[in-house]
């Protein structure tokens, strides 16, 4: 099985739009949406949910009010300002880190640590293939654990269906969730835009791919908004030995496709659609060329 990871560093560069297009052009794949902070892929793929399960990670404090005497020890010890005592102690669930110090020192044993319900995991069917995705509850954070979980489900789905290609819409940034998204990946596609911060993030993501010994490649989206910066980015790609896959025009058709809930490649006669198709051809050649050894499972 081959696995492609689409990353961007900064949000809003067109990563999701491109992921959907690749899924369309692949004519048969499993898709994993690991961009759990802004899980927008479903808006383009319009999935029918087949499977839903709750997802937990870590713990948080819960006060058994009938036992609490309001002594205030917990409030004094909490370094996260997450517990306040009026008559009884009250936990601020947004601030609680689940360290358990309050529970440990409560003389009345009035504080429990309960599992933290972070959100939901889904498996759905779409017109391009099965989609594995997740949704977080307000204030909860994407984590390496959740990314690993979504990817594991997606891989299992590939095996069950006998699908040979997994396309992963990666998380933004370069933190723990991104690192977790690299496992088992054969090829990384980085979508960037021609801005100073775009270039900065691109460099960080390329260095991460090198660290994991996964070949990386770059697409500049909306390249014509700043041609000079685009040139500079292409130059940096050469220097960093990342393959340059191509440029995509700034085009309002992209928004139109989005409004219709379509991948841009489903719009036949538009220039962007052709650029993306060319980029996909290059990617296909790369991953079928067998040059890139997958990272060991």
């Amino acid at each position, binding site marked *: 099985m081959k696995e492609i990871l689409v990353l961007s560093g900064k949000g809003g560069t067109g990563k999701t739009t491109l992921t959907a297009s690749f899924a369309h052009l692949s004519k048969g794949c499993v898709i994993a949406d690991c961009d759990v*902070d802004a899980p*927008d892929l479903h808006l383009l793929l319009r999935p029918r949910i087949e499977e839903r399960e709750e997802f937990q990670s*870590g713990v948080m404090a819960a006060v058994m009010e009938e036992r609490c005497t309001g002594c205030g020890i917990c409030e004094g010890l909490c370094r996260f300002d997450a517990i306040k005592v009026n008559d009884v102690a009250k936990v601020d669930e947004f601030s609680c880190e689940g360290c358990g110090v309050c529970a440990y020192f409560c003389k009345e044993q009035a504080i429990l640590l309960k599992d933290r319900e972070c959100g939901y995991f889904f498996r759905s069917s779409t017109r391009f293939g099965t989609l594995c995705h997740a949704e977080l509850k307000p204030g909860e954070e994407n984590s390496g654990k959740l990314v690993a979980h979504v990817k594991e489900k997606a891989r299992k789905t590939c095996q069950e269906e006998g699908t040979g290609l997994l396309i992963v819409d990666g998380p933004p940034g370069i933190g723990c969730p991104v690192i977790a998204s690299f496992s088992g990946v054969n090829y990384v596609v980085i979508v960037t835009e021609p801005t100073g911060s775009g270039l900065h993030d691109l460099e960080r993501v390329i260095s991460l791919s090198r660290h994991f010994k996964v070949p990386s490649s770059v697409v500049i989206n909306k390249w014509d908004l700043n041609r000079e910066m685009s040139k500079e980015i292409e130059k940096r790609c050469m220097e960093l030995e990342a393959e340059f896959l191509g440029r995509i025009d700034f085009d309002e058709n992209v*928004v139109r496709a989005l409004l219709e809930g379509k991948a841009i490649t489903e719009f036949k006669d538009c220039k962007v659609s052709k650029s993306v198709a060319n980029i996909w051809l290059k990617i296909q050649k790369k991953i079928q060329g067998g040059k890139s050894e997958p990272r060991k499972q």
Partner: protein
Amino acid sequence: MKIAVASGKGGTGKTSVAVALTLSLNGDVTFIDCDVEEPNAHIFINPEITSKRDFYLEVPEIDEKRCNFCGKCREICRFNAIVSFKRTIMAFKDMCHSCGGCFLVCDQKAISPGKRLVGEILHGQGKGIDFFMGRLRVGEAMSSPLIKELKKEALSEKNGFFVLDAPPGTSCPVIKTVRDVDYVILVTEPTPFGLYDLSLAVKTIGELSIPMGVVINKAGLGIDDEIRNWCRKNHLRVLMEIPFSREIASSYSKGQSLVHADEGLKEKFLMLVKEISG
């Protein structure tokens, strides 16, 4: 007055709006870039940085000679930052959340406060703006403590006008940023992505009961009516619409502010401020 500018999704123009709003006020305003993972407001404000300091978290430093290997610190640590087995004990500073539990349970005085660099806090002035930003150390996973410290420093003068640029998304660092502000401006774009991510942000900030309103950026580009209707249904004021223009998109990519591309926006931002402080 403290106003936070947030958005569910990255790339909607949150920083552009925060900066333009700040520049419209003609000085006497403090800008706080709380997007510590990817701070980039300074590109548009271009301040002269006058002070810079490192920020550390308190983490355990273990003195093996004093340790009696009772295992209490390992037991209380829920983040696997301390391990002990047989007559070995180790602390992993970068796993630590600085809850202080290990210091409290050690009765051998074997744990003393060490430190881990989380990031830095920069302060400066530019374009008549008092400017603060936090920058997370690359490889550091916890941004919330840095945001908390940054706010403490920048908001130490109680009076005045403050604009806080929040991180994207709806997770913990966003909540740390918008906590105890007077108003949250949510920036969205008229696309299904924009609307969906706006709905997530409204859900999160709604739980904190902070008044909020919406700025539609790149207006005229798509489902403007749908966004307006959604806002009406959810009792959210649409404070302003910034029309989409290629010039603005292009000048943004060159590090220029919205109000640089369109002078007329200044007046509109002033009206906006009047509206939300009234």
